Structure formats: structure tokens, C-alpha cells
């Protein structure tokens, strides 16, 4: 609390810290409260948006109902930096505390500059949860600040295990803590990080080819397109991809949780280390996929960061929606620009698409169900633009599973996801040790310098490319996939069998 004499009247000023939320960043916001003489009034400056403007009414009632007084005089609340737009009710608690301190109703017993306060106030003084808190927790931890947060938020925030967070249930409890009368306990819950997959590859009968392809795609982070008739199991296979992907490490898991927090999506603690699997419907808009809004929120591709973005019925997505994926697929992040702010969200995801071979879906299933004309079929397949197709490394035809296989009893020898995951993890480690990233993320120069073919194999690849009419662009994709297959085989050089298998995954037509 500071008291200064300015021009004969008593002027009271206080400073409390909190953080705003812009994308995944959480810049510090200093809340200054100044109470001066004059006509009674309460004004908030510093680009407050809707919920923040209304904050004064909540604060007034909360103070009164907590048996404090709203100071008489002119109250000015400044949220600095002034040019940063601020939204949400998270500023209620720090504003209320600022008012109390400035008016001398509470005298801090602690160094208030070492703390950050968050929370929306109810009229009764209770603290309500607020969205997107995790990025603030992470940032505050980096600045070694302690945080006072609403009790309802604490489960999510303990994901940042190192951070010192102090959950509180109401305004009075916070005031008791600040004045040294009471204490706030650090929560001791250890989240149950038991990574359990309810979807397992042992549930998939047959489909050896598809399973092999998924294992390769998982190992190298390759984008994959599954093509098959309805009911052939494309979705079932894709849904099981996260179960063979290695768990996220602590930092990546926390980043993922932060993205979810910003998007106001709850995350199940048992899923904390599991890579995300997002499957937006094909009616999704471009903004829903890449993110946006007047205060930008992450879209599906950012929610799938570090995991899998599954686009079922790929040709049914409007073309302009699919085209927005091209840039993030290359750069692994997405820049969302709006009039007031520009935000960058991470978007390093593995794309898995599924499509039917023709509009009716039954082309080439061995029956005469399909009546699509050649034109219709080619038009349908042309819906996936060349540039997008160029970013897909592996294309796989998923044949329908025969009735005999479907009805056969569960085979005990079917590999489960855990077994496959061990191989995938091993392959991950090989790649990270060699080049510090997955094969899929190698750029053209790195492919040329890291992936070297023998003269024989080079000739073989050239012959095949001619025979299958493959574009020169397919060349690099084949090399990357071949590298992954060789890695799975613990081979240091790419042998012809690796190359041939990789070529088999690179054919769109026929």
C-alpha cells in the first residue's frame, strides 16, 4: 500500500499482477488501482472487453457481500499494458484486491509482487473457474511467481507439476492469506497419469497390410490417406493410430494441455500423455480447422498438435477448407491474424485422411453395386487437390474384410498396440538420434544429404517412377518413407526391399 499526498488530497494507489491470454502466450498484466477524491465513480481503462467492463459490478457486489466497503471516491482501474485487449472474467479477483489494498481495507503481510491472482468473482464473493489458465500457470512458473487461482481450476493446473499454485474458494480466503491471518494450501493431488488406450490394434481382425502401413506412418510421422469402400474399417484403423504412437513427453504434454486450456476444452488426466486424436466433421469451416475468432482461439489442427488429425470422408470437405491445411502441414504452425492481434499456434500434426474410391463408395469392391461413371469417379478423386496430395506420403487401399474373417473368433496372436508401440518408439529414437526430428519433417536439403541410395537402387527407383508415371515430387516422399521402413528394420542404409515397399504406398490412381 502506498500513500502519497498530491495537491492536498489523499491519493491511494495499489499494484496487483495477473496475466492476459493471447493465443498460447500469457503476458503479464499489471492492475493498478487508484482511488482519488471527487465524485464517486468506478472506471476501468486499458482496452477492457465485454466481460472485463462488467467486472466493476461483480467486484462491487462481491466486496459488499464479503463485508468490505466500496471506497467512496473516484476509483480508476488501469490494466497495463494499455494496448493489449483484455477479455474474460479472470481480472475480477485482482481488481477487487487492488481496490481493497488501495483503500487500506487490507494490509498485505506478504510481498504482493511475488504473486499473481486469477479468478472470476460471483456476487457472493465466491471464486469461479476461468478458461485458458494453464498458459498463465506455465508462464508464471517461469518467472517464479506464485499463483492464486480459483479452486475449481486447480485440477487442471496441477498438470504443471512444478508450479506453485494456491487454490482459493472465495475472496475472503484470499484476503486472509494476504493479510497473514489464514493460509492457502498447495494441492497435493498427484494426477493419475495412467495412460490407458481403450482402442487397441488387437481388436482389428485381418488388415495386415493396413496395420503395417499405420506402423510405418506412426514411426516416421508420415501423412496417410486411407481409401476403401464403406465398412472396410478405415475409421477403426485410424482411431487406433494414437495407441501405437509413443507417449508425449512432459513438456509436449503440457503444451498440448495449454492449447486445450485456451480452447476451453477439458482434458482427462488419464489422457494427459496420450497423443491427441481429432476428427472434425466434414462440415467444419476453415476457421474451425485452423483457428480464429476476434480473440483467436486454436482450431482443430492445433488441438491435434503432436498427434493425429483425422479427416474422414476427405473429398466431402469443401476444397477451400482443405487448402488452408497446406501451409500448416509444411511449417508445423499456424499464424492467425486478426485486426487486434496476431497469434501463432503450434500445429504439428500427422494428417490421416479417409475416402471412398468413388461417390457411391463401392467402386471395385468386387460386386456390381457401383454405378458411378468413369467421369464421376475421376471427378471425385480430383477433389483432393494436387498440392494437398503432394503432402501425403502414403496412400493405402483398404480392402473390405471378408465375412469369414469378421466372424472368426478373436485371434490371440493378433499383435496388440503395446507391442507395436515398442517398435515405433525404438524407431522414433533412431530418427531423433540421427537427425533430431522425424523423417517426415526432413526438408528437401536434408533428404538429399541424409538419405543416400546406392546406384542400383537409384536406377531401380527411376525405372519404377517411369513405369508408374510418378511425379518428381513423389520422389522425396518415397525416400522419406523408405528411410522410415529401413529404420524399422534397424538398417543404416536403404536397401531395395525398403524402397520397393515405400513405392507401393505411393500410388493414387490405379
Amino acid at each position, binding site marked *: 500500500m502506498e500513500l502519497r499526498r498530491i495537491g492536498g488530497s489523499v491519493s491511494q494507489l495499489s499494484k496487483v499482477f495477473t496475466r492476459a491470454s493471447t493465443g498460447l502466450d500469457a503476458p503479464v498484466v499489471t492492475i493498478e488501482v487508484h482511488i482519488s477524491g471527487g465524485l464517486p465513480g468506478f472506471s476501468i481503462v486499458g482496452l477492457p472487453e465485454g466481460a472485463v467492463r462488467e467486472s466493476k459490478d461483480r467486484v462491487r457486489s462481491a466486496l459488499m457481500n464479503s463485508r468490505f466497503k466500496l471506497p467512496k471516491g473516484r476509483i480508476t482501474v488501469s490494466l497495463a499494458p494499455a494496448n493489449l485487449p483484455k477479455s474474460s472474467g479472470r481480472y475480477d479477483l485482482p481488481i477487487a484486491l487492488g481496490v481493497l489494498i488501495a483503500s487500506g481495507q487490507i494490509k498485505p503481510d506478504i510481498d504482493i509482487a511475488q504473486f499473481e491472482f486469477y479468478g472470476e468473482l460471483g456476487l457472493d464473493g465466491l471464486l469461479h473457474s476461468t478458461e485458458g489458465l494453464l498458459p498463465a500457470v506455465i508462464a508464471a512458473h517461469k518467472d517464479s511467481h506464485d499463483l492464486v487461482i480459483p479452486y475449481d481450476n486447480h485440477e487442471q493446473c496441477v498438470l504443471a507439476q512444478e508450479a506453485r499454485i494456491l487454490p482459493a474458494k472465495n475472496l475472503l480466503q484470499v484476503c486472509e492469506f494476504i493479510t497473514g491471518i489464514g493460509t492457502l494450501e498447495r494441492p497435493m493431488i498427484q494426477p493419475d497419469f495412467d495412460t490407458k488406450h481403450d482402442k487397441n490394434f488387437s481388436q482389428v481382425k485381418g488388415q495386415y497390410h493396413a496395420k503395417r502401413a499405420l506402423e510405418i506412418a506412426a514411426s516416421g510421422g508420415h501423412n496417410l490417406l486411407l481409401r476403401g469402400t464403406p465398412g472396410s474399417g478405415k475409421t477403426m484403423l485410424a482411431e487406433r493410430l494414437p495407441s501405437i504412437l509413443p507417449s508425449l513427453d512432459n513438456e509436449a504434454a503440457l503444451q498440448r494441455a495449454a492449447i486445450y486450456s485456451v480452447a476451453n476444452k477439458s482434458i482427462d488426466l488419464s489422457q494427459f500423455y496420450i497423443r491427441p486424436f481429432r476428427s472434425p466433421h466434414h462440415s467444419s469451416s476453415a476457421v474451425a480447422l485452423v483457428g480464429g475468432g476476434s480473440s483467436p482461439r486454436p482450431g482443430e489442427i492445433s488441438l491435434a498438435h503432436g498427434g493425429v488429425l483425422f479427416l474422414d470422408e476427405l473429398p466431402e470437405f469443401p476444397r477451400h477448407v482443405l487448402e488452408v491445411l497446406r501451409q500448416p502441414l509444411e511449417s508445423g504452425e499456424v499464424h492467425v491474424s486478426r485486426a487486434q492481434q496476431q497469434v501463432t499456434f503450434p500445429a504439428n500434426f500427422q494428417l490421416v485422411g479417409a475416402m471412398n474410391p468413388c461417390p457411391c463408395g463401392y467402386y471395385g469392391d468386387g460386386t456390381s453395386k457401383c454405378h458411378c461413371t468413369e467421369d464421376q469417379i475421376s471427378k471425385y478423386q480430383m477433389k483432393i487437390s494436387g498440392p494437398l496430395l503432394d503432402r501425403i506420403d502414403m496412400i493405402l487401399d*483398404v*480392402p473390405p474384410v471378408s465375412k469369414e474373417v469378421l466372424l472368426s473368433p478373436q485371434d490371440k496372436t493378433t499383435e496388440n498396440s503395446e507391442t507395436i508401440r515398442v517398435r515405433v518408439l525404438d524407431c522414433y529414437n533412431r530418427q531423433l538420434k540421427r537427425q533430431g526430428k522425424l523423417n517426415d519433417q526432413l526438408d528437401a536439403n536434408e533428404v538429399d544429404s541424409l538419405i543416400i541410395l546406392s546406384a542400383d537402387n537409384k536406377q531401380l527407383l527411376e525405372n519404377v517412377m517411369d513405369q508408374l508415371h510418378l511425379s518428381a515430387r513423389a520422389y522425396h516422399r518415397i525416400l522419406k518413407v523408405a528411410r522410415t521402413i529401413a529404420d524399422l528394420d534397424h538398417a543404416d542404409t536403404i536397401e531395395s526391399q525398403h524402397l520397393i515397399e515405400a513405392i507401393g504406398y505411393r500410388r493414387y490412381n490405379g
Partner: protein
Amino acid sequence: MDLVYWLLLLKAPYLGIKTFYKALKYFESPQQVFLASHIDRVKAGLFRKQTLEYLKSADVNLVQTDLDWLQDDRCHILTLIDKHYPAQLKTIADPPPVLYIRGDIACLSQPQIAIVGSRNPSTGGGQNAAQFATELSKRGLIITSGMASGIDAKAHISALESGAQTIAVCGTGLDRIYPAKHKSLAHQITLQGALISEFSIGTAPIASNFPRRNRIISGLSLGTLVVEATIKSGTMITAKLAVEQGRDVFAIPSSIHNPLAEGCHDLIKQGAKLTSSVDDIIAELPLGLLDCTLPKKTSQSTKEIDKTGFKVLKCLSYEALTVDQLVEKTQLSTQVVTQELLLLEFNNRIEKTSAQGYVLIK
């Protein structure tokens, strides 16, 4: 000027081919129809009020588009009584009274064989069409078909590629090309054969016109080869018409599980000749065409087939098998099977079908 009367009479409303021939028989020439009295016209079988009105008021402007089209050197209109009118076609019950032709007239009187089939053939079907078209062309037969997508187009293209002439019978006026994607094919055919149609210039692609033109395809030809057809298809109509016209019908068999072969199998049951090589066709034709055997196709191999390759090859048949089924049959690992399949494919021993499986070829 006689041609103008032919064209004018054909344009008369409610005047189909049957009535046309009835009137022609009575009056001997279309010109007479226009000169005749009302009573004579009615006697000749022209009852319809609209037809009679038309005959009174018709003038040459109505066929001006046809006449303008005829200005081009490569364009011809042949009437039934023209000496160039193909004799083979005259023998059917309802030959088209006039034929619009763009290209070479002479080829119409050459011995022809029709190759028809599905618009959405299997890869194997397409290859069969191409192969038969090539070999038949090399033995001096002209390939006649309908320029539709699929088998028709394959047959035309293969005939052109082997340097032979080919005839496309269109279901539209010759100023239009249907389907439009065959524009360049149509152009090539006019240079190396002929596009023909019985429909006047400007006739749009109307569904009902296509079965009608099928009788010309079979009528021009000594025989009709059906490559792939489902039971209910235009191809089956052509085959039926060929039988009615007393022409030979040839059908290529396939797997009993192939839905595209049902039509062929049905035809064979009804007496069409089961055709597995060009010789089966040649043997039936009443002509002493040169029998030149074709050089055997040499396969260029990328890599030799080894023991595992043969193991996979042995499990394959002419019915499509998926990779998964092959993995179970051979007890080899998925990666080995996929590798071997690709190698076999490069060696032209097998092919990937759209049915997401692999089949042997020949």
C-alpha cells in the same frame, strides 16, 4: 437437289423410319412426296395432320444447317440410293435413309468388326479391348464402335495406334462430340477413318438416340465382339440387334464372379461364340483375310523374380486377391508380400485391379 428432299422429308414431324420407307415405297423418291397431292399422301400412309401441314409449308431453309455443314471437303451426306452407301448396312431391316459422314467414305464399305462393351470396364477388360482391336486391325479389319468412354474408346484408340482405320458411329449430330472429352479422339478418327451418324446436324445427345445408333454399329459390321457388359446395358442391346440382323456375336468370357462379365456369359449361353483369341473371330468371318501372326509381347523386367516371388505368384489367380488374403495364404510377412507384389507387377506378371486386389495377367 434430290438430297434436299431427302433431308426435308426426314425432318417431317411424326414421320419415323417405318413411315418414311412406306412413303418412299409408294412415291419412289422423296421429291415425289412433296409434289404429290393430298390424297396421294394419305394413301401413302401419311395420316398425321402435323405431317401433312409440314409437307405443304416445308422449304429449303429448314435444312440449311445440314447443307452448310456439307460445304467442308471431308463432310458427306449419303442417301440410301447413293452408290457409296455401305452395302452391308443396306441389308438390315431399317437402314438409316441418310448417313452423315465426316472422314473417308471408302472405309464404310470395307469389312468391319464392331467392338463394344461397358463404359466402366475393368482394367483387364480395357486391355482385352485394346489387344483385340490391335490384332484385328492388323489383319485388315476396320474397327467400328460407338466412341463412348471405356471399351469403345479403347478399341478406337488401339486401332488408330496400330495405324488402321476406324469408324465411330455417333448418337448426336456430327457437329457435336459426345462425350466432350473425346474431342481429340474424334478429330483423329476423321483423319484416319470416319465419324458417322444418322442424326441431322445440331442433334443434341438425347438418351433415346443412343440405342438407335447401335443398330448401325452392328449393321455395318460382319460381327460384333462384346468385351465386357452387365446384363442391363446398351452393349446387350447392340448384341441383340446384331443377332436380329443375322450377324455373328462374339463374347469374351471372364470369371463368373466378375459382374462385368455377366452379359458376355449370358450371350454365350444364348449361342454367341466364346472368344479367347482373334482366331476365334477370323474363323467365323466369310473372307480370306491375311493371317499375319503378331510378335509376342516381350516383358521388360526390372528385377528377376525369385523364390519368394514365385510363392506369391502361385497363390494368385485370375480372381482378385487382396494383400491381406495373400499374407494369410503365403504365411509371409506383410512387407515381403507387398514387395513381391510390386516386383511381379513391374515384370508384367500381375496387375493391381481397382478392386484393391491383385490378379494374374495372361
